[in-house]
Structure formats: C-alpha cells, structure tokens
C-alpha cells in the first residue's frame, strides 16, 4: 500500500468503492428488460413491470403513441422554424427629406423640336383628316397648318408607308382599308386587339389600327384599338421614338427646359433655394427632369418639423404653349418622391400636378425590412440576381424588370428600346439600322406582359425599401384677389428667361412636406431561434415521455452499442462453435466443467468493452464476506414482492 503511486491509489479506491456495473445481459431480451427497468423515460418501465398481457399491450401502445406524437410534433416544430414575426415600430425623430424629382409632362419645347418632327406631324394631320374628316382650320396655329398642307404636295409620305394606319370593320377582319391609298386590300395576318373584349362597346364601329411586319413581310401583325385616339397616339409615339433615338443626348438636353425656366420660386424649410439645388436628370420620355436633394458630395437635407412651412415649396412654370399636341394630351407636371439612390421611374409611379392649382403633398415615411434567405426570396442588393443592372441606381424590382426586358430586347431585336437606359455596347433602335425593330419590339412586349420571357420569375424584390405614403390635396391658386399682384411679380421675376406675360394656367404650385415626423418601420425578425426550438423539443419530449437528451443518448447506447455488442458476441460464439465443431474432433475434454468453459468463452458486457472487471465477478465460489458491502439500493430495492422481477444474472 505504501509503495503505490497516488494516482494508482485513487484508481484502486475508485475501483473499490464504485464497482462497475453494466448491462451484463447475455441476450438482447435481457438487455431490453434491463433498459426498460433502468431508463429515465417513463412508459418503458411500465411495459416490463405490468402484469397481465392486456395491460402490457396497452402500455406498449401508449408508449408507441407517445413516441409517434413526439416525432410528429418535433417535425412540425422543425418545419415551422423559418417563419418570421413582424414588428411595427413608430419613431418620432428628425427625418431625412427624400429626393424629389419634378418633370414637365411635355419633354421638349415644341418650337425647338418641330424641325425634327415636321414630317411626322404633317402625316399625322393628313391621317386624321382622311380618317375622321378632321377640319384643319380648328388647329391652334391655323396659318402654319395651311403652310404645311401646301408643303404636303411635294414630299412623299414615309411614315405612313412604313407603318400604315388602317381602318377596317370589326366583322370583316380580312379586309382593311389603307387610307393612304384609299384602296381596300386583303390582309392576312394575326390581329391583336389592344383593347380587351370586355371594353368593346361599339361592335359595329370601324376600328383603327396599324400593321407591323417582320423582315419578310409574310409575318405581319395588325394592332387595333377601340378608339382612334389611342391608335393615333400609339402610332405617333412609335415614330417619335424612332426620330428621337437618333438625336444625341446633349442636343436633347438643350431642347428641353432648363432648371431656371421650370422653377420659378423655390423654398425649403423656410429658406430660399434655387435651380442650383436641383440636379439634372434626363428622362427619354419626359425630357429634362430636376431632382431636389440629390446633389452628390452634399449632405442630405433633413426636416425636424412637420408641416408645409418646413417642406419644399416650388412654383413651376409649365409653358403650355410649347406642348406637343400629339405626344401629350394632358398638361401639368409630374413629381415623384424617392430615395436618393433610387432611380425615379417617373412614367410608372409619378404623381401628376395640375396647372393653376396648389398641390400639397403630405408624406408619411414607412420603412420595411424583410429577412432574406432562408426566410424569404428577397435580395439585399441585387447581386445574386442573374440580371445585370443597367441603371446607375440601387437595386429594385422595377429596375430588374426593366433591365431584363432591355437585355432581351438587345438579344432578340439587336437594338435597345428608347425608354430605358442603354446596356453596354448597344444603341437605340431606329429605322435606318433596324428597319423592323417595331414588330420585334411589339412581339417582345407582348411576351413580356404574358410573362413568357421569364423576367418576372428571375427578378426578386428588394429586402428593404422606404416608401412615402402621399396624401395629396388641391386648392385653387392663385386666389382671385391675390392673382392681381402675384402674376406681375412672377413675370418680373422670370423676366430674364421668358419674354411674355405669365398666364395662370402656365403655373403650378407644389408643396411637399412631412405631415408629421412619425416614421413607421415594419421589420421582420425570426420567430424562432435555435434556443426556442430546443426548448420546444424539450417541452414535447418532457410532456409525452419525460425524456431528455440523456434518454436519447441512453437509447443510442442501449439499442446500438449494447445490442450490437450482444449480437456480435452471439455471432462470435456461434462462429467459434462452428469452428470448433469443424476442426477439433469432438472430444470429452472440458466437458465435465461446462461452467468454466462458458466463463472463458462468453465475454461479458464489461469484458467485451474491455472494461476492467468488477471485483468479485471473477472469483469462483463464495467470496469471503465483506462487511462493508451493505449498500442502500436505489428506489427499487424496496419493491413490492408481487412486482418483483426475476433476479438477473
């Protein structure tokens, strides 16, 4: 004892005091019985302990049901793991003022672009005259119209020839009247009605449309409209885009309105501002637009008070005389409120402003944040969407859709559509280079609308966005009594730019302000965390079977390791027996003491696991009594005799 190392001493002491026990069951059945008696889960014990077959069967059923329930509930918990909970928060704070883009509805001054569009306008007027008997004298500029009419004789109509406008009866679809020549001609091709069937009211009426053909004229499509107004406008826009696509950008900017011209007065947060606070943004269909609070290298303006006093107040000069009569039929301005890094889709989401009115727009800011993968399909910055962004702006769903269409357009038709920015190494469509682009464009657009291009499937929404809810109200401006002094002053003010007296209908007043500084944030947050999931598991396991991870480990231990070792032991024994029967001739050696043989050959659980043997197990015969062996058995030692199980080996 004295010579022993301290480590060995402790070891010996542990060996002495805590003897190894284990499922030394020789068969699987015994192991199961041992497991059921000693496991921590409830239910199993009942199976073994119960007497009577019915009762035992019932307990087996109950236990199995409980296990099934646990699996089901845990599967539900796992399945609902990636759900989100939404929280809405309202803050009252200083808010950044959004960027405000203002455009005149009319893109270019008509007096300047007329040279480019003269032929087109002439032909449009002729078409109107032939189609509806439109008297030329009613046009605003009578004298000039007459002069065009005289000029008409000399030139050949190129636009009507290229895309002929036609009128034909609804019922006789095969026959169309080309009103350039006045001849009826057979038409064989698809007819696409721009108006849906539900809106057809006058069925007997003659409808107007135009024909678009692909390279070989056999593929033609006829587009018809329920009203001539739409047909003419659509036809005009088509040619207008053709013409404008060939004009360089600098020239277009010069043809449009300057900031000084558009903005008569400007006031932000009670402080005067002017054209220098606006940045130019050229939109293909709206000409020069001006964005407030979007200047690079400058801090974003913010508001710390709600109300119209503290927002942006501008008076716009619209100059209705310079409007293009065929391109735009309404008058006013368009305004859009957007984030500084967002592209203003003025044609899609703009708010229109009426002339001779004060439009006051109250804003409420709502911010939304979504959780991206795996909670939803949104994208943070668009980098994981397989569409390249052709806009110089932050990702949005709309940018993705437009980019997708434009890319497809360049692929299919070989040129880019005029409304949208140019992708790299492409140019805008025009007749000279792409004579049949219009047909291609219309076909592609139809496919896009029908979601055949796959753009809608590929593009995903952005995860976070700011939205300004607008409350728009109108009032008359200027009032009858203030008109008398207001208009002369404004005229004097604009004296440098325009040389004429201002009219009430040329002006519009716009007020954009935060109604109050309450900012609403809608945020998604994960509804479940891993801790919650585990504790829910624990709740389920505990509720049905009073089980825990320990039980799971037990199950693994017993059902996999122990069972495996028992089976292996059996197999080993069988193999050994077989081997012995095969090789060694049957002899009487060792037959007289079979117990010794078993002791040698059958490994016990502990010896199978190469555990040190428990003291006392290997001693054959009666061991000397150890007086210090009286142990308090666990709870089951004082079991009732009727539930007493047969003694284990």
């Amino acid at each position, binding site marked *: 004892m004295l010579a022993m190392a301290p480590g060995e001493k402790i070891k010996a002491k542990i060996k002495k005091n805590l003897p190894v026990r284990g499922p030394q069951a020789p068969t699987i059945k015994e192991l199961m019985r041992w497991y059921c008696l000693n496991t921590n889960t409830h239910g199993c014990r009942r199976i073994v302990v119960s007497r009577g077959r019915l009762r035992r069967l019932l307990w087996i059923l109950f236990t199995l049901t409980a296990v099934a329930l646990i699996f089901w509930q845990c599967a539900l918990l796992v399945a609902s793991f990636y759900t989100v909970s939404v929280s809405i928060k*309202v803050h009252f704070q200083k808010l950044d003022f959004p960027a405000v883009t203002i455009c005149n509805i009319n893109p270019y001054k008509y007096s300047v672009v007329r040279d480019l569009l003269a032929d087109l306008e002439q032909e449009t007027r002729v078409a109107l005259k032939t189609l509806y008997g439109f008297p030329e004298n009613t046009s605003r500029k009578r004298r000039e119209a007459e002069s065009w009419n005289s000029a008409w004789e000399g030139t050949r109509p190129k636009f009507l020839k290229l895309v002929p406008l036609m009128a034909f009866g609804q019922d006789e679809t095969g026959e169309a009247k080309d009103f350039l020549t006045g001849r009826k001609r057979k038409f064989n091709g698809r007819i696409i009605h721009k108006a849906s069937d539900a809106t057809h009211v006058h069925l007997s009426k003659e409808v107007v449309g135009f024909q678009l053909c692909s390279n070989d004229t056999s593929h033609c499509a006829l587009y018809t409209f329920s009203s001539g107004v739409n047909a003419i406008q659509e036809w005009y826009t088509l040619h207008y885009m053709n013409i404008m696509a060939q004009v360089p950008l600098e020239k277009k900017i010069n043809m449009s309105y300057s900031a000084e011209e558009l903005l008569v007065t400007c006031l932000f947060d009670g*402080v005067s501002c002017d054209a220098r606070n606006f940045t130019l943004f050229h939109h293909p269909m709206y000409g020069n637009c001006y964005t407030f609070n979007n200047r690079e290298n400058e801090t974003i303006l913010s508001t710390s008070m709600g109300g119209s006093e503290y927002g942006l107040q501008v008076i716009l000069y619209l100059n209705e005389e310079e409007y293009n009569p065929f391109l735009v039929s309404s008058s006013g301005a368009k305004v859009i409120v957007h984030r500084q890094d967002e592209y203003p889709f003025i044609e899609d989401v703009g708010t229109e402003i009426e002339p001779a009115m004060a439009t006051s727009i109250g804003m409420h800011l709502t911010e939304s944040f979504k959780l991206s993968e795996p909670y939803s399909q949104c994208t943070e910055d668009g980098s994981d969407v397989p569409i390249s962004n052709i806009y110089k702006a932050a990702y949005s769903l709309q940018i993705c859709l437009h980019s997708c269409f434009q890319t497809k357009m360049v692929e299919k038709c070989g040129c880019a559509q005029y409304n949208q920015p140019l992708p790299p190494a492409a140019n805008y469509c025009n007749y000279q280079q792409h004579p049949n682009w219009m047909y291609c464009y219309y076909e592609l657009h139809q496919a896009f609308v029908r979601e055949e291009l796959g753009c809608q499937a590929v593009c995903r929404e952005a995860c976070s966005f700011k939205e300004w809810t607008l409350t728009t109200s109108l009032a008359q401006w200027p009032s009858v009594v203030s008109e008398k002094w207001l208009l002369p002053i404004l005229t004097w003010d604009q004296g440098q730019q325009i040389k004429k007296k201002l009219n009430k209908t040329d002006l519009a007043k716009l007020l954009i302000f935060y109604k109050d500084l309450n900012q609403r944030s809608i945020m998604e947050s994960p509804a479940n965390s891993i801790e919650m999931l585990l504790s829910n598991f624990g709740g389920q396991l505990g509720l049905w079977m009073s089980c825990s991870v320990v039980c799971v480990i037990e199950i693994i231990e017993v059902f996999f390791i122990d069972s495996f070792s028992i089976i292996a032991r059996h197999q080993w024994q069988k193999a050994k027996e077989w081997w012995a029967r095969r090789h060694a001739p049957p002899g009487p050696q060792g037959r007289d003491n079979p117990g010794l043989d078993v002791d040698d050959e059958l490994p016990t659980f502990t010896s199978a696991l190469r555990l040190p043997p428990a003291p006392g197990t290997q001693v054959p015969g009666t061991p000397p009594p150890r007086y210090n062996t009286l142990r308090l058995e666990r709870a089951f030692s004082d079991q009732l005799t009727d539930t007493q199980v047969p003694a284990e080996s």
Partner: protein
Amino acid sequence: MHLKKYLRKCLHRLQKGPGYTYKELLVWYCNNTNTHGPKRIICEGPKKKAMWFLITLLFTSLVCWQWGVFIRTYLSWEVSVSLSIGFKTMDFPAVTICNASPFQYSKVKHLLKDLDELMEAVLERILAPEQSYANATRTLNFTIWNDTPLVLIDERKPSRPVVLDLLGDVHNGSASSSPAPGRTCTAQGCKVAMRLATNIFSQVPRHKLVEMGYPAERLILACLFGPEPCNYRNFTSIFHPDYGNCYIFNWGMTEKALPSANPGAEFGLKLILDIGQEDYVPFLTSTAGARLLLHGQRSYPFIKDEGIYAMSGTETSIGVLVDKLERKGEPYSQCTVNGSDVPVRNLYSDYNTTYSIQACIRSCFQEHMIQNCSCAHFLYPLPHGERYCNNREFPDWAYCYSHLCMSVAQRETCINMCKESCNDTQYKMTISMADWPSEASEDWIFHVLSQERDQSTNITLNRKGVVKLNIYFQEFNYRIIEESAANNIVWLLSNLGGQFGFWMGGSVLCLIEFGEILIDFVWITIIKLVAFAKSLRQRRAQARYAGPPPTVAELVEAHTNFGFQPDVARPGPDPGTYPDEQTLPIPGTPPPNYDSLRLQPLDVIESDSEGDAI
C-alpha cells in the same frame, strides 16, 4: 420562548447533521435525483463514469447558458405586434374646418391700410423701377417699413452684391439683418407681409380678431350627418392664428362623440361651405380653398401641419380609415400616457385637450422663444404672465425669431425632450374630387343656398366660393396596431422548463433537490468544523490530563461522592506493568477492572473512522 426552542432545535440539528459524509451524500444524490444524467455517473464502469460525468457537466453548462439567453431575451422587453383590420361602429372623427384666409378683408382693411399701401408701392417699384419715383412721393406711413425693410439684392456682380432698399436709398446695413435675402423676392415679399401682418394682428385683442374672421353662419351653408341635419351650432369655434376662425364638428368636449355605424358616403358628414374668395386678404394668402383636418376627439387640431385643402367649385370626397397605434408603456417602449412625465409644460392644456407630441414640440418652442427673445410668438398659445411679440415693445424680435427657427439645435432638443404618446390615432384619407355643382344644377343650387343664407332672391354665391365635402368611413374603417409583450413570464418559464427538460429531464423539483443537497453539504461542513474544533479542544484536554481520559466512575463520582478515589490513582494495577511485574501470586485472568470504560467524544471516533466509510 419560541426563539429559544428554535435555537435548541438548531443546535440539535447541528449536532446530529444529515449524517452523511460528502461522498455518501453525493452518491445518494446521484442515485436518487430525478435529473437524468447523475444517475448514470455512479452505476457503471470507470470509462462510462467519466463519459457520463462529462456529458452531465456539458449539459448542465448548456442549460445554464440557454437559461442566460432566455432571461436576457425576457429582460429586453420586446414587443410583438398584432394588426387587426375590419369595420366596427366607431366614433366619427372630429372635423376641423377653416377658411384659407384668416380674416375678411372688408373688416381688417383699416388695420392693414398702411401696410397694403406700402406693398402696392413696392410692387410698382419692382415692376417699373424707372417711373416709380414720381408715384413714390405719395404719403406713406414709413413706421412699419423702417422696422423691416424689403430689400432688392443685385447679384449681377456676385463678388459685391448691392443691397437696395426698395423704397429708399441704397441700404448700407448688412444683408443679414433683413429676413432671408434671396435673388427672388416674391415669396419673401409675401412672407414679410405676413410677418408684418402678424405683427399688427398680435396687438389686436383676441375677441376682436374673432369678430374679423369668418363667422360660422357665413362659412357653413349646409350640414348633414348621416340622415340627421346639423347646422353651424353643432360646431365648436376655435381661433387659429393662421387661419382665423376654425370650426370643429364632433369634438366631444361637451357632449358625447357621435358614432357612425355604417360605411359609405350616405352615413357620413356632408358639408357645403362658402369660402368667400373675393373677401380674401390679398397679400396674406395666395391659395384659395377650405382647410380641413380630421383628428381624434379632444385633441387639438394642428391644422397648419396636418390639414388638407379642399378646392372651391368641387366636391371633395374623403374616405376615412382610422389607423390606431396602441403602444405598451414602460418598460417596453418610451411613451407617455398623458404627458405628465414630460419635462415640457403643455401650453395647449388650456384648451382641455389631450397630450400629443405636436403640442409638446410647440410648447417647447414657445418656451425657447420666451427664453431667448423674452416674448411669446403669436402662432402659439400664450403662457401665463407673458406677452406676444410686437415691434413696439420688442423691436428685434423678428430677427431673434428667424434666428431661433434656423437653429437646428433648438429643434433637436425639443424632439428629444418630447415623448410620443402611447395611443396614437391617425386618419388615413382617400381623396377624390369632382366638379360641383354641375352646370345643369348650378342655377337652382345657388338660388336655394343664397335664399337660405341671405334671404335674397338674387344669387349671392358663385363657383369660386362654394366647397362641398363628403367625409365618410370606408368599408374597412379601422386598422389597429397593438403592441403586446412578446415574452411574458409564462413564455419564460415554459422555455426554461423546456431547456432543462430537453438536456437533463429536470424540473423545479430537481432544483429543490439540488438546493437540499447544497444545504446538506453546508451542514456536513459545519459538523466537520465543529468536530475539528472539538478534537482540538480534546487534544488540549488530553494534554492537560496527560494520561488516559477519565473513566465513567471518575466523572460521575467526582460530582456525587467527594470522598471518591479513582482506581487509576492507585499505582498498583497499571496494565503496562503487568508483564513486567511477575509478582502476582495467581497467574491467569486478572480481576476485571470495573471502572475502565473511558468516554471518548463520539464525533472524534467518527472522524477517525471516516476513511473506511463509504
């Protein structure tokens, strides 16, 4: 007595103890606890023992960590939001109506005479700079002008801008003294006129101002709430410095608020107003229309910030959706129920209205105004014992005011001081407009309305004056966003239980078991300490006796029999001497020494035999 009994019990317990050694206690605990891990530690071989010990430790630390996470989550006081949308009978919102012009020009003309003449002169001067010298000689009252002159800044030479006093010589003062100089002067001109006008109006007593505004019976021509007719008497009058007389329908101050139980225009409020555009003050407002605001009952209408316009000659239909936000107060979010815990005195409480953050910010501004400029601004309510600013008493207030307005720091302090109110109601409006009256009905409608108001057979109204309003609930009239505690105590307990159960199959009872074991542990320690102390004393006592401990007889007889002489005292029967002294005549068993039972203290023996015990 009780205390003594209790103390004795304690002593008893102290002496007895749980009766286990540390090891016994641990083994007993592992064997009998309900948590799943410890049981396995003690029942199998050393490798398994070590494994189970590690597993149990790991799981215990996991449970502790997860509990920490949950408790921290609970203490972060998060809220979850529930949103409900639908229709129910709700109180119709209070509707405040103002005319865009605060006063009837015909009634304020005498006050503004000087100012208007000045303005006209200025306009002439601007529009025709060369010829106006002759006209400018007209008698003008320059007292107002000299306070705040309008200037023309010539920026043609950007390096040296020339400041021109429009009605005098070249102004040689610094540009900053004039309010907001700029290249365009129209808006500023209008603004200055406004400011001068407020200056004038601030000297007029309140009741006179009310008289100069539009009276209810002139403004409100017709009123219909659902099927019930109403008239201007149903409106409460309130004076707004910017818009003059405003009228509030259904404010709920004196009588109960009117409910509306049906959606649609038929069951809402229908109003016909006459804004009388011809009688507008020309330089004060350039916008014509009615100003309108929907707000909650008993709340002050901040019509300038949140109001909308209704245009004359049109019918404006407004569908209303009540958007309510109900916050949970402390500790979940920073909001105030009635504003009593906000360090700003609510000046609008004079109107008997509820707290709102707008009221707080304005009150805060007015406080700052009084601190910095020593007079109160005309647009905000007057605190007690203060006076409104005017040029006569406070000559430089306008400069002070514009300076204060520009100061960002002031606004931010106000925003930081004011708290949001816990219940926030907004009215979302869907606005649509149509021409009214139509050309066909125009004639008879104007006839009827003129007859009703002025008892005249002539038409006294025109398109530019009339405004029709329909205000009604939409099909879904409420959207309530309600905060509730995301993590309550039930949530916390069930998660704690779930974690404990998941890793170790434990419950609160297991914790109590563990606590019991700890207490036992402490007891054992105490007993050991006591035993140790006793053994020390014993050793000392033994040292004093310098021999074997006293026998029972010694102890007993020493107290009762004073003549008692212990056996041991005799030198003869010393056991150690037996083998040496072979003098005893009788060999064999010696006579028993009856007084040989020596008492050792019990615990000393116990502590000796501890090593063998299991």
